[in-house]
């Protein structure tokens, strides 16, 4: 059988999908299915969540037909973008169909005057920005995975990233969505014909699908607000001998009335990793570095850059301000690469994505950083810290030898303790990556009765439980 509640065999499912889409965009051989058993989460790599079939639809009609079929036959459907998620979100933990939407990457419309774009779900974030830069526009959220993550995946996870401190998350830019519901019905949120930049007409269905992680429907089109591209930017990098000083400097910059477009932290392990990946960067190897990015007019960026430099100098050992395009690109791409490059922090080891995306209240960040280091020491596990310190959203990467079971177990305990720390000091278990499979166990503790309401919404929209089952709600 294709999935828990399916009324169709795997073989029949494949035949029927081929009838719907033709053979080219349906994968069912073991070798192809194997490559859909993972995203970047470690959990997906130590399990074997194999779908029965993978489909690659490229029209709303095709998605709708697949959903109608899945609804009739009780087959689970897991939407998937680039599979860069870190939570097992795009992996078919209950089998069935994986719907790979990454090849459906048309930019349908760029409306320069109304400052909005309409895209299909598979458009890659960086490619959208490359395309609209010739119109002087840009879509500000900036995930570390910008070069490969899809807009569909970003909406479904309400992703954010390096510039969230000033520009917020993806959701703040979504004006409307086309969604194929679990029974195949096609709806449009935000107004059928609307091109308005604001609308409070009716319940906020757009908001409902943000961070829904593919559990409520398939996003097939996104209408995004985009912004004028700031003409100038500058990056100030400050190097600190103490992690706590780095965190304090961030608070002091805010206190001076400056709102940088990005504030990123790298601890010693992260700095070392970036140097190993991009030796030309030559970052001083201290306990912590903070990257401040400012943007706007040339005069404003220079002025704010200089002010930040002055403030940081009070605590930092050294400070570098970059306005040269080449150096800024090197620094920023170096920072973006840490997610995977942190493996280099320790020889013969790897970083694992074990579900560490905690978000702390700003005032508690210095304390949280210290406690995370302690947790690492308690479990004898190296933890590399980097992330969006400007909004308290930290990534804590365990660096272990994944071939050693005792190290894997210790890393899992580290991840568990860090999640508990976030809940204990009034933070969130996930700031941007989502719940997926890996954090479902914390939902009850984090949300209490609100989780029951979420469950009721899910049951109402997806009564047969076929949309990405096994995610967000642990009991499924």
């Amino acid at each position, binding site marked *: 059988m294709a999935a828990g509640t399916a009324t169709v065999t795997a073989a029949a499912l494949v035949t029927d999908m081929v009838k719907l889409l033709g053979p080219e965009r349906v*994968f069912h*051989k*073991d*070798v*192809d299915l*194997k*490559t*859909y*058993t*993972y*995203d*970047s989460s470690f959990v*997906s*790599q130590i399990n*074997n969540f194999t779908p029965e079939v*993978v489909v*690659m639809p490229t029209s709303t009609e095709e998605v709708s037909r697949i959903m109608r079929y899945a609804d009739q036959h009780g087959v689970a459907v897991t939407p998937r973008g*680039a*599979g*860069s998620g870190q939570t097992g979100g795009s992996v078919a933990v209950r089998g069935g169909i994986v719907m*790979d939407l*990454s*090849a459906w990457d048309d930019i349908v419309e760029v409306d320069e005057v109304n400052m909005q774009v309409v895209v299909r779900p598979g458009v*890659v974030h960086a490619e959208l920005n490359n395309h609209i830069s010739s119109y002087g526009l840009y879509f500000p959220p900036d995930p570390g*995975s910008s*070069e*490969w*993550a899809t807009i569909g995946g970003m909406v479904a996870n309400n992703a954010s990233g390096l510039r969230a401190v000033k520009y917020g998350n993806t959701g703040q830019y979504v004006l409307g969505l086309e969604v194929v519901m679990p029974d195949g019905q096609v709806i449009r949120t935000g107004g059928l014909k609307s091109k308005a930049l604001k609308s409070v007409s009716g319940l906020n269905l757009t908001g409902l699908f943000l961070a829904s992680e593919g559990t409520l429907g398939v996003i097939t089109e996104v209408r995004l607000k985009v912004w004028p591209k700031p003409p100038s930017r500058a990056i100030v990098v400050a190097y600190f001998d103490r992690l706590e000083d780095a965190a304090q400097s961030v608070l002091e910059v805010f206190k001076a009335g400056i709102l940088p477009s990005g504030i990123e932290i790298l601890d010693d392990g992260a700095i070392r990793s970036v140097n*190993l*990946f991009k030796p030309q960067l030559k970052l001083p190897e201290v306990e912590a570095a903070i990257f401040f990015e400012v943007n706007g007019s040339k005069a404003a960026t220079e002025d704010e850059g200089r002010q930040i430099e002055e403030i940081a100098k009070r605590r930092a050992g050294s400070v570098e301000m970059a306005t040269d395009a080449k150096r800024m690109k090197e620094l920023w791409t170096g920072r973006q*690469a*840490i*997610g*995977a*490059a942190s*493996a*280099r922090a320790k020889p*013969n080891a*790897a*970083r*694992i*994505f074990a579900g560490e995306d905690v978000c702390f209240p700003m005032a508690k960040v210095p304390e949280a950083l210290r406690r995370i280091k302690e947790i690492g020491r308690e479990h004898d596990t190296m933890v590399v810290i980097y992330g969006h310190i400007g909004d308290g959203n930290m990534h804590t990467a365990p660096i272990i*030898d*994944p*071939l050693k079971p005792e190290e894997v177990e210790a890393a899992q305990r580290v991840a568990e303790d860090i999640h508990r720390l976030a809940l204990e000091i009034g933070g969130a278990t996930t700031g941007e990556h989502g719940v997926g499979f890996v954090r479902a166990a914390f939902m009850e503790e984090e949300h209490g009765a609100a989780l029951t309401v979420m469950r009721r919404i899910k049951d109402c929209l997806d009564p047969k439980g076929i949309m990405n089952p096994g995610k967000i709600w642990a009991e499924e």
Partner: protein
Amino acid sequence: MEATYQLDFAQELKKCVRCGKCRTSCPVFHELRGESASPRGRLALVKALQTGELEPSEELADRLYTCLLCKTCAVDCPSGVISDEIFVAAREYLAEALGQPLMQRALLRGFLTRPGLHASASSLMRLYQKSGAAAMLDKTHLIEHLPEKARAAARLLPDVAGRPGRKRLREVTPAQGEKKYRVSYFLGCATNLLYPEVAEDTVEVLSRNGCEVVTVDDVKCCGMPHLAYGDMETARELARENLRALSDAGSDYVVSDCASCSATLGETYQHLFDAGTPEHARTKELADTVYDVSRFLVEVTGIQPGEHQVEATVTYHDPCHLSRAQKVTEQPRAVLRAVPGVEFREMAEADRCCGSAGSFSVMHHDISTKILDRKIDNVEATQSELVATSCPTCTMQLSFGLRERGSEATVVHPVQLLARSYRGE
């Protein structure tokens, strides 16, 4: 799965965190779009093979061979995964595990699905029979199928020049002016058979720059085609013979005008033998003396600038085996700039693979042609009269792409322009 090709699969594979970044720049994935065509997907397949979750199969071989070994994924990987080397090692394992008939079918599948092309098969036959590439195909009896496939591939080939390079060159060409170095010229199969005039120009340029040039007669194919098809045994045998022949020649340096040959001699040979063995020590010694010709001119002799004007607009395509395998990108451009009259125009994505990758362009013609289309778009956008590149397979592929478009631009090796400038053509 045993450790092979000096590579421990489990240790290398564990570095891949499955972040997905390598989906960004893989030329093959860009055309096919399914995850199994991405570098991350191929690594997952090798991992499944290593852990025993998947058995060796024709389909698995197909996915692993639908790869240009262009190294883009490896160079871009933040985590330091040596993906292309992992794929080569896995091919070796598969070649052994599957045995010939299955492997043959897997390789042929792409080959047989060519659109019907009608050009003569004889030139392809000749290349495959004469070049070292034939060895692997011969061994697997693929050669028997060639006439059929050759129709498809023949359009790729240039008109095969009458006299091969080796017959045109003297055993020792003296240095012009003061002799600075004695250099062994490593003449690769494709240059020898398809572009003998490049061989002549390389030797002339070396000689003009103070080198006594020995065209070593008994060198064999460098072994790159065999490595690509997982035939390590033959590759090792060829490496041994070349090590001996080059050492007998007793030169200060070994220089090649073929990016694949210099990459194989200078880097890959070291992976073929166990550390600590005398052969491994010899590959290391050899590596220190091997140079691509442009790099040699820039870093060792210094370029004697051209004397006569060569009025031409020229763009440059970086071969994967030079830019990524050897990190040589500036030197060929420096050679072009040393030619008076040349107006150099940088193309977009100059280091993106052209889709040739040895026989990939024949075996996976459709994908290769799509990758090539993008390259030719970039070439045409520069409106250059000439495209320079440092690899005979890239030359073949780019020439094919330009011919198909009806473009008048032609492909040259950078040293050819320098030679023309010396001669005043």
